[in-house]
């Protein structure tokens, strides 16, 4: 299987006031195309930082990140934005929907940024919302939706541009167990049906276990990469 994403000895240090906090201390692993990968670790292990770096939201201090063989460190901020727009979809713990926009408008947003025609964007957003099972609540605003529904909208938004990679940062962290599980199942289904690569950050071992592979992260280093038996069989 082709390598879609390569992380090579990535280091990142944050400055908290006067103290330097090393978040990642040399992380390396690969992600294959079409893979469902979880990054598992306790809080403070550098999971989110790693996700931000893979999602081109931030740049590492050292090391390389290659997406489709291209070193993203060498790209300009505008090129990175374009990469986020076309190849990467984000799902956040706190959903991060724009509160004054309806579900449909939130899903449309990346297409709007890309400059797509309104009608075309609307059709595509409707289709994607159907895919996540929210066709009945398209014109509701986020505060009118439950947590699970909001996360479905967020997933639809992440998928709208048909990205190669969907990055999810604790997507179930703000949901009850049952709803959280439904969201994971949805992502698994999309991964299988559409062949998109999913990288999910979680501190929940049950969710981590659903993946093809689990990257264990602790104190900013990879402790181990494990093939998950359940992940490969759904």
């Amino acid at each position, binding site marked *: 299987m082709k390598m879609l994403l390569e992380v090579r000895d990535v280091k990142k240090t944050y400055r908290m006031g006067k103290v330097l906090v090393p978040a990642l201390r040399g992380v390396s692993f690969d992600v294959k195309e079409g893979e469902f990968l979880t990054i598992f670790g306790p809080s403070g292990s550098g999971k989110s930082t790693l996700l931000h770096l893979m999602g081109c*939201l*931030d740049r590492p201090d050292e090391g390389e990140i290659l997406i489709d063989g291209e070193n993203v460190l060498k790209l300009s*901020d505008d090129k990175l934005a*374009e990469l*986020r727009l076309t190849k990467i979809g984000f799902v956040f713990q706190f959903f*991060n929907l*724009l509160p004054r926009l309806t579900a449909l408008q939130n899903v449309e*947003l990346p297409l*709007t*940024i890309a400059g797509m025609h309104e009608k075309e964007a609307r059709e595509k957003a409707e289709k994607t919302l159907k895919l996540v099972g929210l066709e009945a609540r398209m014109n509701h605003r986020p505060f009118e939706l439950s947590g699970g529904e909001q996360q479905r909208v967020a997933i639809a938004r992440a998928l709208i541009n048909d990205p190669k990679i969907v990055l999810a940062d604790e997507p179930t962290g703000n949901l009850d167990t049952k709803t959280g599980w439904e969201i994971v199942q949805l992502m698994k289904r999309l991964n299988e049906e559409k062949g998109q690569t999913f990288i999910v950050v979680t501190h929940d071992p049950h969710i981590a276990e659903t993946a093809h592979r689990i990257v264990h992260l602790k104190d900013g280093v990879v402790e181990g990469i494990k093939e998950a038996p359940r992940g490969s069989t759904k």
Partner: protein
Amino acid sequence: MRTKKIFTIAWENLTQRKLRTSLTTLGVVIGITAIIGIASLGEGFRFEIKERMQQGFELDVLIVIPGSFTAALRPPFKPEEVESVRNVSGVKLVAPLITLPQAKINTTDGKKVNALTVGAVNFSEITQMISERFIPMDGEIPDDNENDTIVLGYKASFLNETTQVNVNENVTMQIEIKIPTPPYTLTINKTLRVAAILEKSGTPGITNFDYWAFIPLNTAIELLGEEAYNIILVKVSDVEQSEQVAKDIENVFDNPYSISILVPIAFMNQVDRILNIVQIFLIAIASISLLVAGVGIMNIMTVSVMERTREIGILKAIGAKSRTVLVMFLAEALLIGIIGGLIGILTGYGISFGLAYVLSSFIQPQQETGLQSPETQSIAISPIFSPQWTIIAFIFAVAICIIFGLYPARKAAKLNPVEALRYE
């Protein structure tokens, strides 16, 4: 992102915070109202002054006098000199004038006629020279060869507030001539027929002849025994060339500095320039309020960027470029500028026209009487719609909003997406 969509989103953001947006826009409205108000009233004032000056002066008529306006440095003009002025290029018409300031005019029954100055002219020349003013209200302007006639200015024809001299009535003109050797004063009485009474000139100015009386040139030359002119009126072919023609006329004389030429257009242009400077100065002061509005926009937008930090983070995370974020915020500033500018232009003209209307109802038109001096006429200023100032004010409003919106917009564009997403 499509431009239309950017403006739609900007508009939605603005209408989401109605009170805040209206207050911010109000600042721009006040600034533009002040600018437009001052500009339109200023234009109106300039127009009024210009109009009055045009009525007071014949703009294409130069007035040539010997010496200066305060002292005669040289004797009156000789007929040859009048002829050489007539030959200057650009001169269309020349009318020399003899003034008889010492002349007294009485009716046959001894009542004093209110002519302040008696001028001797060639009637055909003066009629052509100031055709718009030298119009008989009563009677007819006599031919050049009709001696012993007199034409009275409108106000000169009034003996008192109610009695007027009649056309074809005879009046006596008394002049005193000083004979140098041996020194004595010769008093001459001349009976003249009132041929015409002129229409009221109405406005103040050099060529307001309301208090003048005119007699034929030949009669004056006969009485005075010499042909010496105190004033030469010169009509130019092209008003714009007035100043050049005036220079050429000066050079006709042996000593150019011994004569003075009044060039009305130059005078008027000068006054207009001064008024223009005053107007620009006032507008500049009014513009300060627009600057204050700009600071208000900067303040509100900075707060808005802080409040929307997370939203900016989301937009960047899903692929918005820094430039897109910048343009989104600038679009909001631009909309405030456009709306504030348009409303300001409307209220500016509304207020200045309203103000002019209210003020003009306070200024009652005065009762016109025959002996009223022209200076007491009321001046009503009506504002003028100036496309030029309207465009300048609008561009200024938009420019101020963009300039002051640039700082917060750049701040938004530069936000680090990871930090912005973490912002609570």
